[in-house]
Structure formats: structure tokens, C-alpha cells
């Protein structure tokens, strides 16, 4: 039976939210679009944090609420903890604007 304490908001999402502390090595069952999916946990995931529902390649869109919440900054395994160490935002990126500017100057 699907774990009620692992929440997938929209069927298009590739991450879920843990509503309990999950441990690496656990096999968890989540409900995605009314179908059960079994995932081997790669990492510990604390209450409130996210786990990947499927493998993601670097640069791939991370989807929650059916919408992009950023891009994977590295390859992510199913069952891996998904957070600031492996996801990048696409808003408020003054650091990138600066990089683009210095690239333009170099060119």
C-alpha cells in the first residue's frame, strides 16, 4: 500500500515530499497518478525534504506542483535526496548575469 506520508502533488512531478523521516535502504511505495511506484531509497530524507521519483540527468527540469522548480545541477538517482546540493534555480541569478557579462567582455 502506498505510503500516505510521502506526497506527490501532481502526476507530472519527478520529486515527492517526505512527511516523515525516511532512511537510506528503505523501500518506499508512493502513489503517482493513481499507480503505485516502488523506490529504493538512496539517501536519508528528513521530514519536509524531497526525494527523486525517477533518475534525472544533469540539466533536466525538476518538477513539483506540475511545474519547474529548477534544473538538476548533477545526475540524480531515483530515491536520492533532492535539495540545494543538486538543484539550481533559474530566477534571481545575478551570478549568471555577471558571468554572461564578463563572457561578453572577453568576446
Amino acid at each position, binding site marked *: 500500500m502506498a505510503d500516505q506520508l510521502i506526497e506527490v502533488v501532481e502526476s507530472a512531478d519527478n520529486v515527492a515530499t517526505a512527511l516523515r523521516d525516511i532512511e537510506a535502504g528503505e523501500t518506499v511505495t508512493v502513489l503517482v497518478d493513481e499507480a503505485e511506484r516502488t523506490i529504493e531509497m538512496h539517501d536519508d530524507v528528513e521530514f519536509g525534504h524531497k526525494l527523486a521519483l525517477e533518475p534525472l540527468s544533469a540539466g533536466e527540469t525538476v518538477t513539483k506542483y506540475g511545474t519547474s*522548480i*529548477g534544473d538538476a545541477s548533477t545526475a540524480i538517482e531515483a530515491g536520492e535526496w533532492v535539495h540545494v546540493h543538486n538543484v539550481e534555480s533559474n530566477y534571481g541569478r*545575478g551570478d549568471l548575469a*555577471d558571468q554572461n557579462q564578463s563572457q561578453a567582455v572577453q568576446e
Partner: protein
Amino acid sequence: MSEFLGYERSDGSIGIRNNVVIVSTAPYANDTVTRAADIVENTVPITHPLGRCQTKPDVFQTYRTLLGYATHPNTYGAVVVAHAGEIVDGDELAADTAETGRPSESVNIHEEKGVMNGLKATVDAAQKMVRDASEQRRVPSNMSNLTFGINCATSDTTSGLCQHKATAGAVWRLIDEHDGRGVFAETPEFFGGEQELAERAINDEVKEKILDRVEWWDERLQATGYDVRGAQPTPDNMDGGLTTIEEKSLGALVKSGSGPIQGMVDYAEQIPNESGMYIMDSPGHGAESVTGIGASGAHFMIISTGQGHTLSNAVMPTIKITGNPGSAKRVPEETDVDVSEALVGDQSIDWATNQLWDEISAIIDGKLTMSEALGESQFAIHRIGPST
């Protein structure tokens, strides 16, 4: 319920509290205001670091915010305290307050020949005003007069899954069943959800304004040359599981529900009288957005929090709701409504909405909120440009 017990004002507005505010126009009057409020019971001091050496856009914004508090529906009357001749003018503020029929007095520390005389004049005016205010009684009033503000506070991943849904439920109940108004803010917390939000606008003008303001905030943040992470999301947001500003925003927008957006006002600008949901343009900085929403005339504020928060306002009562069971246990003195059973237990979001609505109903009739009982509040006017 279509009626509540409120205080009638001569400008037609109805208050849920009967505050006497003592308003400083510049940092150099702050101490006089704080000291007078310590002496006179039942007064609210309003102090800030602005009002002097500001350029025009900030002068207008500071003035509009202070006037919003002096003439707030929950304000009985105001004593305005100026230091000398500031660009935010104390006499003008007192006169504009009097235009709404509220008692108002103006004290100028220089004209009183110093702080001791200035303090005496402020205390005398405030003492008379609170005694007059104490004679006013609550009367049955129509709920269509009410505006509920909504703000996030230390969001985490529980916010968008639980407490924001109950919050949306309560505000839309006020709008749909009682012809009231709702208002939310924090424009940088629309990042990533702005297209869907803009589609909810009632016309192209409102739609364009939402998209323009989101773009303005993103450009302004990019102009710093830094990654905004740490400022948005904040370290406590990230501790709670929020990874990017997009994720925070998509959760934050849940509190606005899914109904039409009637309009978008500037920071501290008055909310129109027509029923519906409005946006006030502000940063995601909670003290600044809540201060602005109060100045816009919201009677009451729902603070929907993930990790728990002290965020509150002295003129506009703030109720705190959380669905994070850990936060409800960790900071019970900052939790008015705990709906965590709807997140990790067997209760529904409808149950959570009813819990919130029942508590709101008691508070608008006069029950004190957790933060009111603790005498806790913050006041922070958002500034646009530099001091000069």
C-alpha cells in the same frame, strides 16, 4: 455568520480594534514616541528609520504607509510626532488623518522647545485620546466591510501542502460568502508561478501589471550580481526542505487559492472597496510586506507559517496557522491554529479551514491573538532607493 462586532468610523470604515497610534515621522522623534507609549496605556507606537533625506518615491511611500496606519480602520485616532521640519511633514499627516474624521494631534519637538516639552505634549494628547476611545462600543457590522491579509512566514514544504490551503479556504469564504476582500503580497515569491497567476487576472491591465512587477523584481535582484539563494529562499526555508525560489513561490501561491485576481496595488496603497482578491506589490521580507498590507487597510492578517514565526503587527491582528506538527509543538505560544492533523493525520483540508475560520470569527469580535497577548509586533516600511 454575516455580522461581526466592530467599531464604526465616521469615514464609513469599520474597525475590529480601537487603537490610538502615536506616529513618528522621522528617527529623531522615535524615542519620544516610544516613551509616550510606555506612559499611556493602550497606545501603539509607530517608529521607523525613514522620513528624512529620502528621494520622492520613498517620501511618497513612507508618507502613504504612515497615513495608512493613522487612518487604518482599526485606528481610533493618531498623535503625530515630528522632530523638526522633515520632508515627511507631521502637520500634513495629522491634517490628512483629521480629514477621515479621526481625532488627530500634531506635536513638533522643535516647536515645543525640546524633548521634555515634546514628550509632555505627546502624553497629554494621547491620554485624552485613549480615554475618549475607551467610551466607544462595538456594534453589529456587516462582514462585507472586512479585508483579510495573507502572508507566508518561514515557509517550508508543509506550507503549500496544508496550511496555505486552509488559509485560501478562509479568505475565499470571506469573499464568496460575505462579499469581503482578500489581499496577498510578496511579488518575488511569484517567481516560477507568475504565468499561472497572471492568467487569473480579471483583465489585461491587471495581467500585465503582475508580469511587469515580477520582471522588475527579477531584474533588480540580478543587478546585484549575486545568486539570490540565501535571500530567497532563506536559510530557514531551506532547512524546512524548500530548494529554490520557484518551489517556495509555487507553494506560496497556494494561499491565494485559484479564484480571479481583481487588481494589483502598489506598496501601502489602499485596497479598492469592491469585493474580491487583490495583490499588493512588496518584497518577500515578511515584516515589510505585512507592514504594507496593514497600511493598505487590511483589518486582519492570516500568517501561514511552516517553521513557526513571530511575525505580527500592532494595528492589524495577526493569526498564526501551521500544518507542520513539529512547529506547532516547538512554538505553541506562536501558534493560534494547529492544523497538522490535516497533513499527517486523518483530518481534511475542509476541517482545517473550519478550525481557522472559527478562530478568526472569535478574534474579529475581540478575542486576542497569541501575538497580541504577548504584545509582540514589528514595523518595517519597504524602501525603494537610497538615503541621500
